[in-house]
Structures are given as C-alpha cells and as structure tokens.
C-alpha cells in the first residue's frame, strides 16, 4: 500500500507545533500501525531528519503506553489499542491524520508523546487498599461471589491509556477514575476506605484540570478495554453518598 501521513510535529512543550505531510510506500497490510510508523522513521533517519516521537512499549495491547488520535479517533478505527491495529484496516492511497491526545491534563512533550502523570496522581490520591506488606489473612478467608469478582475484574482491566479522555469533548477522566473506584468499591477488601477514596480521587481528578462529564458515552465507545459506563454511574453514587455522610458528621 502507498499512504500519505499527516502527522502532528511539535519540538517540545512550548513549541506551537503543526501538521507535516509524509509519504510511505510498500506498506504491507499485515504490518501493525506502529510498524508502519517505524518504516517512516527509518526513512526520516536515512534522510537526516528527526524521527517522529510516539509512545509505545509492549506492543501487545496491555501496557497502556501507545496512544495516537488516528483520523479523529483515539487508537484509530477499531476498538483496540494502536499497537494492535493493523494496516489491513486502511486502504491503499489513503491519507491518514495522526495527532497526539488532546487534553489540558495531558501536555504534549514532543510530537505525539504526551505526559499522563495526572493519572498517577489520581491513583495516588486514594486508588488503593491501605494494606501493608505482611499480616494479612489467608486468601481463601475472603470468599467473593463469582459474579461480583467478575464485575470488579471488568473494571480492573483498565490499562490507563487515556483514550477515554482523548475521546471526550470535555476531556473528562471520569471513565478512568470510576473504573478504579468501582473495582475497589465492589470488593470486600475495599469497603473500609470506600467513601474517603471516592472523595479524594474525584477531588484530584478535578484539580488536574480534567473536564466534567456530560454523559455522551464517547469514552466507553473508544475504550480499548470496553470499560463500561455503569462505572461512572456507580462512582457518582459513591461520591454522593460520601458527601452526604460527611456533611452529617
């Protein structure tokens, strides 16, 4: 296949940035999208130009590193991560537009690389069970009904890629935050800190500059792990019950 690539180039955080066009040829349909970009980068290096910087690592759809807004969609046309997208999803002669995630809380570092440390700070605010190493009960002393375990697991599959934020017109991080809050709220281990956790994580999410949720559902539709909107509803319930009970005190 021969393709035209319209790629966002930006030298550093303070640079204004802009699109640049490149051509690649002889692309095999079995290549992954990132391997296609590898080909472009070899080409640029051979010409002495700076290769396009993009995030990636495992290339197996699990580490959450890869990103890219491809033709207006986070992770491209399929509901998967960019590293798991193959060129058979595109047509010969096509022009593909590639941009970084766009969100105030995800500043662009260079080209297509963004800084997602805001997600870490949301977890830091309370996305855990406060248990130290050692002194815990036998694992089978905490039986958990399979239905609940499975539901909590669905929420736990979030890989922290940020596509939900990139998909949302308000750049809201509700899907990401609610996935962790839900997972722990459903499990017996997470009960003790349930209210405090919801309050703190949501406060941090707001402090990072993520937008509000207007229930369009774009996040879940683009999430490569299919994290469900019910998590957001659950988070809202957790939050309101937390606020109400702390006002009572």
């Amino acid at each position, binding site marked *: 296949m021969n393709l035209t690539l319209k790629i966002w180039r930006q030298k550093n955080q303070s640079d204004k940035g802009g699109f640049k066009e490149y051509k690649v040829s002889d692309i095999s349909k079995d290549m992954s999208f990132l391997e296609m970009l590898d080909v472009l980068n070899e080409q640029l290096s051979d010409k002495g130009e700076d290769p396009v910087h993009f995030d990636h690592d495992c290339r197996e759809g699990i580490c959450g590193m890869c990103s890219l807004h491809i033709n207006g969609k986070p992770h491209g046309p399929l509901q998967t991560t960019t590293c798991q997208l193959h060129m058979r999803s595109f047509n010969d002669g096509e022009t593909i537009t590639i941009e970084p995630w766009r969100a105030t809380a995800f500043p662009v*570092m260079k080209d297509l690389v963004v800084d997602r440390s805001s997600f870490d700070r949301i*977890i830091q605010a309370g996305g855990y*069970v406060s248990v130290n*190493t050692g002194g815990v009960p036998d694992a089978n002393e905490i039986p958990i009904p399979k239905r609940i375990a499975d539901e909590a*697991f669905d929420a*736990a*599959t979030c890989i922290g890629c940020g596509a939900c934020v990139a998909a949302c017109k308000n750049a809201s991080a509700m899907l990401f935050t609610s996935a962790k809050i839900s997972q722990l709220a459903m499990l017996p*281990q997470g009960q003790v800190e349930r209210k405090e956790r919801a309050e703190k994580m949501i406060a941090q999410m707001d402090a990072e500059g993520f937008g509000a949720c207007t229930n369009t559902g774009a996040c879940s539709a683009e999430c490569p792990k299919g994290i469900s909107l019910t998590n957001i509803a659950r988070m809202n319930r957790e939050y309101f019950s937390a606020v109400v009970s702390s006002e009572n005190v």
Partner: protein
Amino acid sequence: MIDSKIPPGPIQEKWTQYKASCRLINPANRRKYRVIVVGTGLAGSSCAASLSELGFQVEVFTFHESPRRAHSVAAQGGINAAKDYKNDGDSIWRMFYDTVKGGDFRSREANVYRMAECSLALIDQAVAQGVPFAREYSGYLSNRSFGGVQVSRTFYARGQTGQQLLQGAYQALMRQSQIGNVRLHTRHEMMDLWVEEGKAKGIVARNLDTGEIKLHVADAVVLATGGYGKIYYLSTLAMNCNASAIWRAHKQGAFFAAPSWTQFHPTSLPQMGDYQSKLTLMSESLRNDGRIWVPIKSGDNRPPHEIPEEERDYYLERKYPSYGNLAPRDISSRAAKEQIDNGHGVGPMNNAVYLDFKDAINRDGKTAIEKRYGNLFYMYKKITGMDAFKEPMLISPSAHFSMGGLWVDYELMSNLEGLFVLGEANFADHGANRLGANSLLQACVDGYFISPHTIMNYLAGEKPIEDPKPELSHEIIDTNQKRLDNLLAIQGNKTAEEFHKELGKILYNKCGLIREKQTLLKAKTELKNLRDSFYKELLVPKGSSLNFELEKAARMEDYLELAQLIVEDALQREESCGAHFRAEHQTPDGEAKRNDNEFQFVSVWEILENGNHNLHKEHLDFESIKVSERSYK
C-alpha cells in the same frame, strides 16, 4: 571468592533462622537511611513500597512515564503458589523439587526452597490488595495447571495476571508516595552505578525529558530492571526492555551469572515479515487442547487441510508420550526448531509449526473451545487475520526470559556490597530453565518478603551516607555525558534499530535454541565486526533533550557488549542443560546431556580492567534432594 552466604541448618529452617537472627534498625532511625530502587515492575514496586512502609527513605527510578507500564504488566498465564487449595498433593517441598528439576539442577537449592515457602504469603498479600484472581462459583480461588508439573498450583487473572498483580504493587507504591517516604523519578534512565570503597552508594541517572544527567546517592541500591531477552530483537519483551542498568553495574564490578541462559517460549506467533518488531506471545494454556504437528514431507507447501492425517507428524506426542504437547518449554521449543530447520516449517516464511484445535473442537464442540480460548483466538485473528477455528494456528519459538542476570547471594546482594538485585534481573532461582508461572512469583517474593529483611540487615552495619564531594560527582557525570556525546558524534548512516536487527539475527542463528562450538566461534567474529561498525556507522539524530534514538543507541551499545559475553558463556559450558543445548552434548536420541561431574556450577563472570572476562564458579551442592536425569518421556 564466591560466597553465597547460605545459612546453616535444614533447608526448611534456613529462612526462618535467617529472619530470626538478622540485624534490625530501630524504627526511629530508619528514616536516616536512603535506598534507591531502579525499576517499578513487580520486584521494584513491591520492594520500594515495603521499604517505605518500614520507614526507610526510598528513591524510585524508572524510564517509563508511569510505574504501571513496567513489563510485568504483560504476563498472561499465572503465578504459582503451593497453597494446595486443590488437595492434589501439592506442598512447598513438591514445588521446590519441581522448580529445581525444571531448572535442570542448575539453581541454588536454598533460594528455590525459600521462593516456594514464601509463595503462600504472596497470594494472601495480593488478595488483600484487591488483585482479582479467578474464582469458582463458591467464591473461593481457582487454580489451573501449567507446563512441566502434575499439580494445579497456578493462580490466574484471566489472561492478564501480570497486569493485575502489577496494579496491586503499583497501588501500594503510589500509596507510599502519598503517605510515606517514596519519591518517584519517572522518565529517568539509570546510566551508571556509583561505587565508593567497594560499596554501591548511588546511581547516575538521565532525565529523559531534559537530558540532564545527575548523581543520586543512597545507602543501598536495588536493581529490579527486568529481563534482557530483547537482545534477540524479536522477542516477547517490550520494545524498551534492556540490559543497561545491570550491564553498567557489571562494568563497575558486579558479577554476571549465566548470561547465555535464555528461555525461548514455544507458543509465540511467528515472524511474518522483515518489518516485524516483536513476537506476540500466545498463552501456553493453548497446549492443553491444541495438538502440535508439521507435515512429514519436508517442503510440503499444501494448505493444512489438504494434508491427510497419515502425512502429519505430531512430533511432541511421538517423542514424549507421557507429557506430549505439554512437554516443558525448552524441550518443546527445541523440538519445533529441529522441525523447522529440517524443512518441515510451515506458514508464509516456513518458520512455524501448526497448533491444531480440530480434534478438540470435534471432541468438545466449538462452544466449549470458544469458552476456553475465545479471547486468544480473537487476538490471533486480529493480529494475523486468520481464523483458528477453521485452520490450525501458526506458532514458533521466541526469546522470552533471561534466567541469567547479575549474580546475587542468598541475601539477593551482589558481590558489590550494598547492591541488591531482584526479579528477572538477577540469576537466582530458575536454574537453566524457568517453569511457567514461577517468575512473577520470584519477582514478588524478592520484593515483598526477602529484600526488606536483607536490606535492613545490610543497612544496620552502615553509617548513613553524606552527599559526595562535588569534584567526584562531576567526574562520573562527565564520563557519562561524554559517552552520549560520542554516540551523537558518529553521524553515520545506520540507526540503532538496524544494528539491533542484525544483532538479533546473529544471536538467534548462532547462540539461540541450539549452540555449537564452530558456529559460536563464528558468532564471536561477527559480533566483533558488528561492534566495530557500530562505532563507525551509527546514526543518532542530534538533540540532547527528549531523543528516543539516543536512548536506543546507548542501550544498543550495552547490548553489543553483553552479546559477546553471552557467546563466551555458551562456549565455555561444554554440556547441555535446560535451555542451553550444545549440539555436541546430546544423548543418542537427541536429548540434552548434562555433565554433572564438570559443570555442576553456575558460571559467574567478572569483568577485568581491559574489558576481558574472568570466570568464577559457584559450585552447586544439593544436600536435600538427589540430582537425577531430567526426563519427560
């Protein structure tokens, strides 16, 4: 010279005794000590969090943008523990024995026993953190069996056990960075180890965003930087996995053990074209129902469904009737390579074997198979465009896990005092072949349960460090800056990636699944030539701040040096054991032939001033079990 510091006493009591007698530090004094932890995979995150909980100051470094991205995240299959929840005869002893045997009697008995012993508490710890292991309808935890053993001791979390365990460790780490004494340095790459009077006292790290290189001092340094299987280029590892941290420590005096022991995973997807950057792992569990075969006629290019039953060779079932398609990894991988080398390889590049579900589908029905492996079949289709319900999967062996790594003693401390090495980065527990689902365990146990005790024991004998004199720190920073400047100055015409691909080819062909003296010698020459051309032809685009190509080039430089030691190590070991198969040393029916009289030791390499290497031997004494032939027939 090699002292593994194994505590005296019966094997069942060594660790208990050690803990009872190791030195402690008063809680109020702990905050005076600072420990650097490099790496935030299972080993690093768990160690850092646990040390901070005890009250130590912890500085954590990772080149990743977030601790949660470490490659532990990619582990699919599961984690072993001798809980015996199944009542199927499992015990610490059995797990210990399986692991030593699986490693072909080339691991240190006392360490392996301790790993099995600590496995029980690890599952408890993970569940308490909220790690969602698979459960039965009763609400209790579920187990499955994994290659090379006869009990079901593997705990799992769908196909993402690593991601779920890492979430647990990451969350513990993030909690400590909020309430405790952890300081995170993400996007920082360790470039060098700082050694003072023979003791590790800090690291040199480069801020990848700004390019700034700085010395960070501490009272002890922990390296938990993962495996280096990516040196083979095509592998199941992440693109950025590297050996730089341990290699730089090695160059500062830390011994490197068994560098050539690399595990090749039998069920990864084969290479489909030259552009390919990695090989995706398909879970080993597929071997429970899939049958592996190749056409009997070499060069047979007919599509699989046109090859009649009598013209197929189910070679694992034929050669290993009692384990069949479930033979251990090293054996399955080597058998596949033999078939491929003898012209029986299938697929577009004739580099694969078939994993066929036809009989399982006929036996159990499509629905049952879909229920068991649906997500894997779906992933296979997404990557290859092929439907495994209709035609057999194509699989091939791929570089996967490094049993080798920095040498450590029973305390997980290197010969350089104050340098602790955890997880896949050390050599300790897996011998010459790792059993599936044991390495997540090792990484966790090293970090949560072992290193917190042994590090405290070490620190108790140290006076808290002061910042070094500025002249000294300038020198090591300059050396490291110059190193990068030199790489930038070459301005040739070949990228680091291109060198990496060439390096991978040399290692796969000449120091991979099958090794032989003559080809190893050839590899030595080729590696030397490749290194020479690296310093003439490398091309790194200018730019000292965020520059991925510069990061790759520096890692590549280290890989090129390590590759030479890998080949040296493979040459020196005139026997076959586990993943190390020397063609000259095999039984008449083609099985690995160990030489216990001469090689019952771990090869431990010391680097000399002139860059050459000196071999030390750590003899392996088996006091608790009888060394036997490792047979799976």
